[in-house]
């Protein structure tokens, strides 16, 4: 079993993951900063508190499963997996390099612990629904849960709404989806590119239980998942409001950081932001 961290430890772990992401992307020379950074709190909560996992036995039959749908944010998943002990942290710097198990977008067949192959948007919710259907109706495995993270811009893809109908019809109560509501996509702000609102109303009308949280408040993330687990007659979606680029102030809120990596000066500046005394003190030692 993986370790279950406390709130303070989780905050510190999320910060470590953010540092890993900056190192990885700088070394790779390409990749996606904004979403990877803003998902650090949710992914840290999943890997280090919420999910039942065994990093030394990735296919453990009683594990919870996680399908990353917006595969371009996979640096945050790789970092969490390395921090959890799925593989050595030194391998993180092979991201996007020839021969690496850490492909630019996740490939299940390359790296034990990945549940799916993703990148082309709009597939993760379907795959998670198929898994959740199996647990609920075929294997009677009520103790296992299926998590997926989708980007908000990704919801432009119609296939998501096919999956939303499917999960709603079959009341897949072991399915818990996160939407990374950071309001950006490649071409700009989501509401300018293709408006998504009313997101709450949309998901409710598809038969889902909807929760809205601050996606950087780890207590809120854990509470929302516990609430979702308590809802036994519907799938749940947690709309997590996040700040793209969270933790590195010059990247925050700026859609231009969606799909680029920091150069060495920018990476150095980002590390300084993530390693302030303030960050270290408030995330740990005073607790």
């Amino acid at each position, binding site marked *: 079993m993986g370790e279950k961290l406390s709130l303070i430890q989780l905050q510190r772990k999320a910060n470590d993951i953010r540092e890993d992401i900056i190192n990885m992307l700088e070394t790779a020379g390409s990749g996606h900063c904004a979403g990877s950074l803003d998902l650090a709190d949710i992914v840290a909560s999943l890997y280090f508190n919420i999910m039942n996992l065994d990093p030394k036995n990735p296919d453990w039959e009683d594990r919870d*499963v996680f*399908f990353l749908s917006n595969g371009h944010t996979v640096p945050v998943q790789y970092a969490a997996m390395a921090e959890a002990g799925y593989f050595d942290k030194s391998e993180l710097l092979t991201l996007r390099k020839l021969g690496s198990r850490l492909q630019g977008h996740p*490939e*299940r*067949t390359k790296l034990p612990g990945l*549940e*799916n*192959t*993703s*990148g*082309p948007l*709009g*597939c993760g919710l*379907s*795959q*998670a*629904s*198929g*898994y*959740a*259907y*199996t*647990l609920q*109706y*075929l*294997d009677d495995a009520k103790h296992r849960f299926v998590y997926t993270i989708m980007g908000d811009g990704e919801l432009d893809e*119609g*296939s998501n709404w*096919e*999956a939303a*109908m*499917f999960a709603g*019809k079959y009341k897949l109560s072991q399915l818990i989806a996160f939407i990374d509501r950071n309001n950006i996509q490649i071409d700009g702000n989501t509401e300018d590119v293709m408006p998504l609102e009313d997101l709450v109303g949309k998901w409710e009308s598809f038969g889902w239980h909807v929760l809205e949280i601050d996606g950087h408040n780890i207590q809120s993330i854990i509470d929302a998942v516990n609430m979702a687990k308590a809802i036994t007659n519907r799938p749940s979606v947690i709309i997590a409001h996040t700040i793209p680029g969270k933790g590195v102030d010059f990247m925050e809120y700026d859609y231009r950081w969606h799909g680029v990596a920091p150069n060495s000066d920018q990476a150095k500046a980002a590390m300084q932001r993530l390693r302030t005394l303030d960050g270290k003190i408030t995330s740990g030692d005073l607790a």
Partner: protein
Amino acid sequence: MTNYLLNSNVFNDDVEQQPIRAGFGRGLKAAGAANDKIVALCADLTDSTQISLFKEAFPERFIEVGIAEQNLVAVASGMARAGKIPFASSYAAFSPGRNWEQIKTTIALNDQPVKIVGSHAGISVGPDGATHQMLEDIALLRVLPNMIVVVPGDGIEAEKATRAIAENGKPSYIRLSREKSPIISTNETEFEIGKAYILRDGYDISLMGTGIMTYQLLIAANILAGQGINAEVVHVPTIKPLDNQTILESARRTGRVLTAEEAQIAGGFGGAVAELLSSELPTPLLRLGMVDRYGESGTPHELLEYFGLTGQHIAEKAAEFVHNKAQYHRDY
């Protein structure tokens, strides 16, 4: 030498006929009885694709996904990750016609043992017209690494092919025709994924077919025999992996190859044979099928006539080919 047990009644007017999709339905039901990991998904075409036989036998293992082919195959991918062997069925025009990228990413690249069932493929679907006549599926699926592509020649072979892909552990596509077609094989006839079969020995030309075209090639070979042309007939029910050895040996024996399919020859079965021959054993090749055009409405038989895919038409084309093209590397 022939290595395929032909239906002894195949050349008679009263040859048994049945839809290839019916064989699939029987095969899936039998596979489901043998292995409880097999599940079936359908996109609102349960009776048409004959997956209804499985649904009646194992209702708890049948999942209706509605008219949503992208979701159909990606849900199947997730179920495969959870340890199941999913068969995902629809019309070929929609799956893999609409959801090719989901098939590539979540099934082929992801190497999950999902079985894509494309029914009502080819021009023989008939009066529904070009929108529903899937002609590009062979080309679309055979370019995918990890993917197995099977096109059974009759209902009996479809049953065996379905059982075979159920247990092969690989992403697979099975292409099915809607209309009744003559039974060319028997219950005892061998079927193995990846093998092509010699149905008739010959030395003037190799007639290679897949799906319902193989029956038409048998008829064409008989007509050609009456004209003194001795044609070998090769049945190729697996397009990927292609049985290179059997195809090359036949080409070496006869020095001329004709392929037939009710699909686009560009990238299709004829395309696969062309790739093989051009790199391994350059051989005069005539590819019959759909040539850079769509189909149209008509009865299945009218359409086969119109597009020159009946035994009679194929025999005419083959005779012309034999008379006008020199044989290469004939070692008969």
